Structures are given as structure tokens and as C-alpha cells.
């Protein structure tokens, strides 16, 4: 497109300036939230999902990257078949899904988790399962880190459906365009 302009007493349009404006527009943060969930505890996942659903309710695009202990929340079942001894140990010692995450304090072999869940239900606070389902329904993207899956011997067959796979650049690509980015 060519632009013709007559400028009186001013300067002519500068193409370099225009491309600079375009670049600035691209670098501007979008209406986006990016979370990294590294931890494997119920209370921390609760915080992540409250932020995620809240952001989605504010019309923001939300991505959650699950890495290391956080991956337990995305498991639908434990798989032992075809795994090495170390991988089987990891599978046995990590929670088998969102509902089985321990609490970060006073877990006492799951008693603390039971208590917290009961207290949340009594006070009509949404459960972790409800919040997770709500986040999905609202279009929150769930991305599993393939490197930590590899390290811990977690296969895609163990993960719930609809989880995307990605790496650090997937996270950074979203985080760089986000107004909010948190590591939980």
C-alpha cells in the first residue's frame, strides 16, 4: 500500500518509525495469564485453579504448564506395565490423580487432606475437581512438560484426555505475551 501525504510545516511519514510502532504493538502484553504448576500439593493446585478460573472469567486467555510434581494432577491412572523398576517406584510413590494430591502442611498420611476437603465442602467452597472441570469448560489450556514426563517415566496414556504436550519454549512463548505469569 502506498500512502501519499502532503505535509505542511511538518515532517514526512517515516517508515522506520511505523515499523517500530508495529514492533512495539507486538511486544505489548496480551490479555493473558500463564501459570507454571511445579508443586504436587492440593492446596497449591487449588490456588492455581482459582487464579485460572478467575482469569478466564475476566476474559483472559489462560495456559497452565504442569511440570515435575505438578504432573500428578493430570494423571487418570497409574501405569506400571512396560516401566523400569525406578519408574515403577515413582509411579507407586506419586499421587495417582488430582483427587489424591496431599496437602502441603499437616497431611498425616491423607488425614489432613480429608479434613481440608470436608471443611471446604462444609463452607461451600468449590472442590478441586469442580474447579478443574470448570477451568476446562472455560477454555483453560493444560500443557504437560514432556521433559519432566520423560524423567519421571510418565506416559501420555497415564494423562487425562485433552492435555497438550510442550516444553520450555511453549511456556515462554505464552509467558512473554502475558500480563500475569506465576510459578506455583
Amino acid at each position: 500500500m502506498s500512502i501519499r501525504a502532503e505535509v505542511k510545516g511538518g515532517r514526512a511519514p517515516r517508515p522506520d518509525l511505523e515499523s517500530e510502532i508495529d514492533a512495539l504493538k507486538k511486544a505489548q502484553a496480551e490479555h493473558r495469564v500463564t501459570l507454571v504448576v511445579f508443586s504436587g500439593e492440593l492446596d497449591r493446585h487449588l490456588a492455581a485453579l482459582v487464579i485460572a478460573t478467575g482469569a478466564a472469567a475476566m476474559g483472559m486467555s489462560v495456559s497452565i504448564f504442569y511440570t515435575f510434581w505438578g504432573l500428578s494432577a493430570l494423571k487418570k491412572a497409574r501405569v506400571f506395565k512396560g516401566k523400569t523398576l525406578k519408574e515403577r517406584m515413582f509411579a507407586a510413590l506419586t499421587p495417582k490423580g488430582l483427587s489424591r494430591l496431599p496437602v502441603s502442611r499437616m497431611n498425616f498420611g491423607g488425614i489432613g487432606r480429608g479434613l481440608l476437603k470436608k471443611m471446604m465442602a462444609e463452607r461451600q467452597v468449590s472442590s478441586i475437581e469442580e474447579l478443574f472441570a470448570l477451568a476446562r469448560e472455560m477454555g483453560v489450556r493444560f500443557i504437560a512438560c514432556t521433559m519432566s514426563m520423560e524423567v519421571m517415566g510418565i506416559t501420555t496414556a497415564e494423562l487425562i484426555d485433552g492435555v497438550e504436550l510442550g516444553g520450555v519454549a511453549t511456556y515462554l512463548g505464552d509467558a512473554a505475551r502475558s500480563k500475569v505469569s506465576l510459578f506455583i
Partner: protein
Amino acid sequence: MTDATLLDARGLKCPMPIIRAKKSMDALPPGAVLRVVSTDPGSVLDFQGWVKSGAAYELVGQEEGTDDQGRRTFIHLLRKKT
């Protein structure tokens, strides 16, 4: 102004009032007003924050009241921008 649509968010805890509000707003035409009744004291600042982030809604007003069960309520009037 047209009549406001009522959203009963009493008893709901964070983040549910804003999530229900978003869902109600999605079903409403531009310019419509939503009246949210909540019992969560945190909802006062929450709805102020909710309108700050997007440009899609505006907070028309907030007031306190008491419902038929004697509970303290927080009423939020929100308008979907055209």
C-alpha cells in the same frame, strides 16, 4: 435503563461469584445490566477488579443489604458494554 437480570450468588465462595457473573453476562445482549447478589464480603473488591481487567463490562453501582434470611448481602450492578 432496562430491568436488570438477577444473579443469585448467595452462599457462593471465591471464585464462583465472578464465574457465574461471566456466564450470565455471556448470555446477555450488550447494554444489559446484571444485578449480582452475593454474601461474600470479598465480592466487593472482586467485582471492582473484575471490570478493571477487561473492557467488556462496567460497574454501575454497589450496595449492601440484608436478605430475607437476615444475611448481609453485597449487591453489584454490572453493565455489559456495547
